């Protein structure tokens, strides 16, 4: 038995949490002694609907184990692993392999995402049903990194996946409008001579897919929103009653295109960093519920992929170990929202979108998947984390909030800031 004494819940209540075996058995004051947790928030373990674990295929950048360690350190108890591995997760055997690697690591729940199309090529449907029926029980499908741009393929996929009770997570990027694109399109891309990535390339796909989802009555999730216009389109679609959910990354909430002036590829990401007014619209959308969740789009890359010319460099940033601090900055430190909303965007809503049970709540009789964090602590983000890759655009920044303990199925995956060895 483990008792967390004097923890602060998102509701503002101070209480004790009793964990027995893998379950929470009591949320409430108890006379049992246990671990004193003064000043620590107890929240449901975080759930990331958008992680690149890079295994199989790119083990120099990340493995399921190293990504699990990074996730646990960031307070996560579940990660959804994107399908753009090598081989692509477009068959039952690959998703089962990823799930098995996650179980072996044992630090959090690894939920494989299946590719929508074979090889992420955008033309033929992958083994959607077989993946859904496999041991991995895939509930989220995505070609992330690529847009399912063919409207007919997208319409068929939405229809088919609806029958599986699953959801498609779309990477909204019109490919023709973004050929060779390097950064946000605007005055800065003009000056820097880098090919622009117009916001309409994102917004037009979201609008199209919202209408397709409406037509077929399917659920649709939009990965990493980045523009003010995209927030407007999602807001419109929700008002219309379309079953659409949306995600924003930590970096798009805080970082802007001005960083690209350095030509430092650590700031190169797909979709690109946008303008200040976009970050403000994204924050507003996250607070008012237009945007449902924070997904990290944790995209580790080995240093060779970033230690080069901007146009040569890979797209992507790591994110698992500072996402909660960014959420705290945007929702709590700003005074704009509260810990209940924090819990929704970091845990309960991503679990709901991904049809993931046993996460997103702290309740008696439920699995003990929780995180204890010290919101008062300040820390300087370092490039070197538990991830195998160091492409961290927040390195050197001072952020509030520190994960002290992470508990997965009743056991510490992180204790006193130290990740358990698997």
């Amino acid at each position, binding site marked *: 038995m483990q008792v967390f004494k004097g923890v602060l819940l998102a509701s503002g209540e101070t209480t004790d949490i009793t964990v027995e075996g893998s379950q929470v058995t009591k949320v409430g004051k108890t006379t049992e002694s246990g671990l004193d947790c003064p000043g620590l928030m107890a929240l449901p373990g975080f759930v990331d609907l958008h992680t690149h674990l890079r295994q199989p295929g790119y083990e120099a950048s990340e493995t399921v184990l190293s990504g699990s360690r990074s996730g646990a350190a960031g307070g996560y108890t579940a990660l959804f692993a994107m399908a753009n591995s090598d081989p692509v997760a477009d068959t039952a055997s690959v998703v089962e392999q990823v799930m098995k690697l996650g179980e072996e690591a044992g630090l959090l729940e690894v939920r494989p995402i299946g590719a929508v199309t074979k090889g992420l090529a955008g033309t033929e449907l992958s083994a959607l049903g077989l993946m859904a029926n496999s041991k991995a029980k895939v509930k989220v499908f995505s070609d992330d990194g690529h847009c399912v741009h063919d409207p007919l393929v997208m319409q068929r996929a939405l229809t088919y996946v609806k029958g599986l009770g699953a959801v498609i997570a779309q990477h909204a990027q019109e490919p023709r409008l973004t050929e060779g694109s390097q950064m946000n399109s605007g005055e800065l891309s003009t000056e*820097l*001579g*880098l090919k622009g990535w117009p916001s309409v390339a994102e917004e037009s796909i979201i609008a199209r897919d919202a209408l397709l989802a409406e037509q077929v009555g399917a659920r649709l999730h939009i990965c990493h929103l980045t523009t003010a216009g995209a927030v407007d389109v999602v807001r419109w679609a929700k008002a219309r009653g379309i079953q659409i959910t949306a995600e924003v990354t930590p970096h798009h909430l805080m970082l802007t295109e001005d960083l690209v002036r350095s*030509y430092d590829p650590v700031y190169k990401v797909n979709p690109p960093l946008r303008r200040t007014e976009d970050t403000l619209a994204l924050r507003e959308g996250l607070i008012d519920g237009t945007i449902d969740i924070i997904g990290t789009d944790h995209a580790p890359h080995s240093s060779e992929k970033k*230690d*080069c*010319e*901007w*146009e040569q460099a890979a797209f992507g940033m790591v994110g698992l170990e500072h996402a909660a601090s960014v959420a705290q900055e945007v929702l709590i430190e700003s005074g704009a929202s509260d810990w209940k909303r924090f819990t929704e965007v970091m845990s309960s809503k991503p679990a709901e979108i991904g049809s993931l049970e046993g996460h997103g709540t702290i309740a008696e009789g439920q699995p003990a998947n929780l995180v204890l964090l010290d919101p008062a602590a300040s820390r300087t983000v370092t490039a070197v984390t538990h991830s195998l890759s160091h492409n961290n655009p927040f390195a050197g920044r001072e952020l509030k909030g520190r994960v002290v303990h992470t508990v997965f199925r009743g056991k510490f995956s992180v204790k006193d800031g130290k990740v358990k060895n698997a």
Partner: protein
Amino acid sequence: MKHLTSIRELDTGSAIAILDNADELGAVNSREVKKLPALRGKTVVNLFYENSTRTRISFEIAAKRLSADVINFAAATSSVSKGESLKDTAQTLEALGADAIVIRHPMSGAAQTLATKGWISGSVVNAGDGSHEHPTQALLDALTIRQIKKSGDDLAGIKVLIVGDIQHSRVARSNVLLLSLLGAEVTLAGPETLLPKTFAAMGCKISHSFEEALAEKPDVVMMLRVQRERMQGTFFPSEREYAAKWSLSGERFKMLGNQTIILHPGPMNRGFEISNEAADDPRSAVLTQVRNGLSVRMAVLYKLMAGEG
């Protein structure tokens, strides 16, 4: 000052100092013995990832006139084609004794990356990076205008019109920054697809009519080449239509004032963006640009490599 990768690194004073120095050093080029000992014992490497005989030769002669040793490294035909990275190539060249690397690269930002990543300790001169900048070209253009217009230190009040494929032009970007830094009024003109309105933020005016822009009586008209090699897809219907609207020829050529300077960074496409009539007119300063390119590059290499002290 250690590197020159962007006009943004200059202020008005340092830009004028380079032009003044170029004027002085340019005098060497008319001497019988065209050589100064300033960079004796130093090595300059021309690292060219794009073919450019003109700029490469200009840098080569400039370095030699200052008594530096010069190595030309045509990256397109070397180990780079076997997959060697810019980092390894640059470090190899430095290990071989390069004190400065003059780099031309098809990717925007490559020169700045080479200067700031900590890969090498020597100086970096940007000889053109993608569609970003070509600072020595802008300096030689400024010097040419200053000499012909006898405008004193800077270019205050001089009206410069730059015409053509602005979108893909590093020459246009460097010139907008430098000429406006020196007080000139710069107008860019070209078809909408090759001149997005976002250029205005760099401190210039925008026009989509060559005739209207000429009616403003510019003191300088700079014609740019259409850079097909940087274009993805279609930007205008046909060369014929482009030439009909944007070539310096016929009626438009007749609109130029008696003292208007005609510039072109070369290589010219005669009969396309510029007519023979314009290219060979006495008002054309194209060969003065080439000569000034030499002096400006001498001044830049001297400033970066010999130090100011």
